[in-house]
């Protein structure tokens, strides 16, 4: 449920977009972007999407974003976004950086509890998922469609960490013992996106 709330959160300010008039370039103004793209990693290349809501001031943008990141283990990163545009109010290259937390979104592939196949009753802990850090940095190009809206494309490097603990009963040659083993994954990807800003 928390995951769905995270996904909905950035959309809320968008309802106010229509209410806003054009702002002068040197005033703080509302900014949002909606992007689709691919995460190109060593393993494979899934699609990704993200939404950023924030403010724009002169050549700078800052905001909060949420993304859907299906690479390796599906997760929902929530992050702080900052960007610097070379030019203000016209077509421009830009650079950006994101930093935040990646929330794993389990579809049952790593069950939380052991389940008795006969009774269906849940038993001891099995997997515990942990949030990991998330970061991204890249460059892009913004093509103004009108004075406010623009088409954007960007490319960058994206990193997310995924960790989980697994409890297993193992046979050590003489007896069965319960141990906790930890897994930690560093996923490094290149990201390419297209989108638009409001």
């Amino acid at each position, binding site marked *: 449920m928390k995951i769905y709330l995270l996904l909905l959160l950035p959309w809320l300010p968008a309802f106010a977009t229509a209410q806003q008039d054009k702002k002068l370039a040197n005033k703080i103004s509302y900014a949002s972007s909606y992007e689709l793209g691919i995460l190109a990693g060593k393993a494979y290349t899934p699609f990704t999407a993200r939404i950023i809501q924030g403010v724009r001031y002169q050549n700078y943008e800052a905001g909060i974003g949420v993304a859907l990141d299906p690479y390796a283990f599906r997760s929902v990163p929530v992050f702080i976004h900052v960007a610097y545009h070379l030019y203000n109010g016209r*077509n421009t290259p830009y650079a950006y950086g994101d930093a935040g937390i990646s929330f794993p979104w389990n579809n049952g592939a790593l069950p939380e509890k052991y389940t008795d196949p*006969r009774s269906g009753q849940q038993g001891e802990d099995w997997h515990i998922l942990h949030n990991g850090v998330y970061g991204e940095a890249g460059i892009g190009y913004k093509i103004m469609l009108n004075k406010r809206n623009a088409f954007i494309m960007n490319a960058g490097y994206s990193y997310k960490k995924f960790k989980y603990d697994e409890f*297993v009963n*193992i046979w050590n040659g003489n*007896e069965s013992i319960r141990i906790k083993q930890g897994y930690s*994954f560093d996923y490094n990807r290149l990201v390419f996106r297209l989108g638009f800003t409001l």
Partner: protein
Amino acid sequence: MKKMHLHALAACLLIVCAIVLPGCVKDRGMKRTTVFVPVLKTTAEVRDAIKSDVPEDVSQPGKIYLYGKYIFLNELGKGVHIIDNSNPAAPVNKAFIHIPGNEDIAVKGNILYADCFTDLMAIDISNPEAVKLQSFVHNIFPERQYIFGYDMGANNVVTKWEARDTVMEIEVADGQGIWRNGNFYSPYYYVTDNMMYLASSFNGAKSDAVTMPNGKGGSMARFALMNNYLYTVSWSKLNVVNVTNSSAPEWNKTVDLANWGIETIFPFKEKLFIGSQMGMYIYDVSNPEAPVKQGTFEHVRTCDPVIADDDYAYVTLHAGTRCGENFNQLDVVDIKNLDAPQHVKTYPLTNPHGLSKDGNLLFICDGEDGLKVFNASNVTSIQQLAKIDMAPTYDVICYNGIAIVSAKDGLYQYDYSNSSNIRLLSKIVLKQQ
């Protein structure tokens, strides 16, 4: 126009990057786990070290063997406790024999037969407090050379496993740590030359081998003595060992049972009743060196100890982690015609394991339900006489009015000379893990 060219150039650049650059990035996975490293001894060292040591706490009881005033109790994978049971109300733990890999025992005369991984040991126990190895049969259980794929070699044994916390790298590129087709691929266990990385999940269920102590002369033994022969069963084989000279056993032959999942053997009147996961097999040993299959009673795939008397065999089926089915019951089988055993009746139970019969009294270890005592004078109408609540029970031996019961928390002895007033005589408490 110039702007359009710039936009097209930027788009092309992105596409080229998307195709070319992913090969430059690499995922990385780490696993923090417990690695068990075998501590090896040569078989010669182990044989030299077989002697009576100071008594040790019982922590993982295995098979039980009664001999004279002594109880020989297997400590799973480690050796044999010698317990002086002169007074069943106050048994005394007298000594411990270190036998790595020991799971099964039997006693003939003053000789204790015990497996030590691949070998069969013949140990003189005439003075239980100063036992002595008499001889051994090498490699009679060749399948025991491997533990989860770890090959000890023919001349080594694993005396213990040392746990070490370890961090290892995971090959994410091989698919581990990657979600595909709805599955997240976790690393599995693997074995190298000198280490055993154990990380395989048993789905939360503890291995039967850990918690299923067994009993001599009862339903869960894998060694059976009959006259001058020792019969042992393994996964699919029956070994015939001539013990006419008790201290120098001779391995005569190995019979392929043509079935797998063999679990128990019960000797009765020149017959061997062999319990397997697929059924009960009756072998005739009129010629003790040449067992011949005489009858079969097949059933669903479960774990099944078996005992027998003149006319009937009693088979308990229980669902277990290794056994694959979900049946918990007692089957009574008419064996008056050994060539064609006939099913008589099934009685539902909770999770039956070992069983024992004395006269008309039938004792069944029914897992979480403790020990149950039945009147089996009429096999078509077996009546429960008593239910003794206790920790989960695994096996029982009835002898001379005393029932020795192995349970999860200890070894109990009950006096059943008055079946309407079965009373606890003593309990050897297990050392907590």
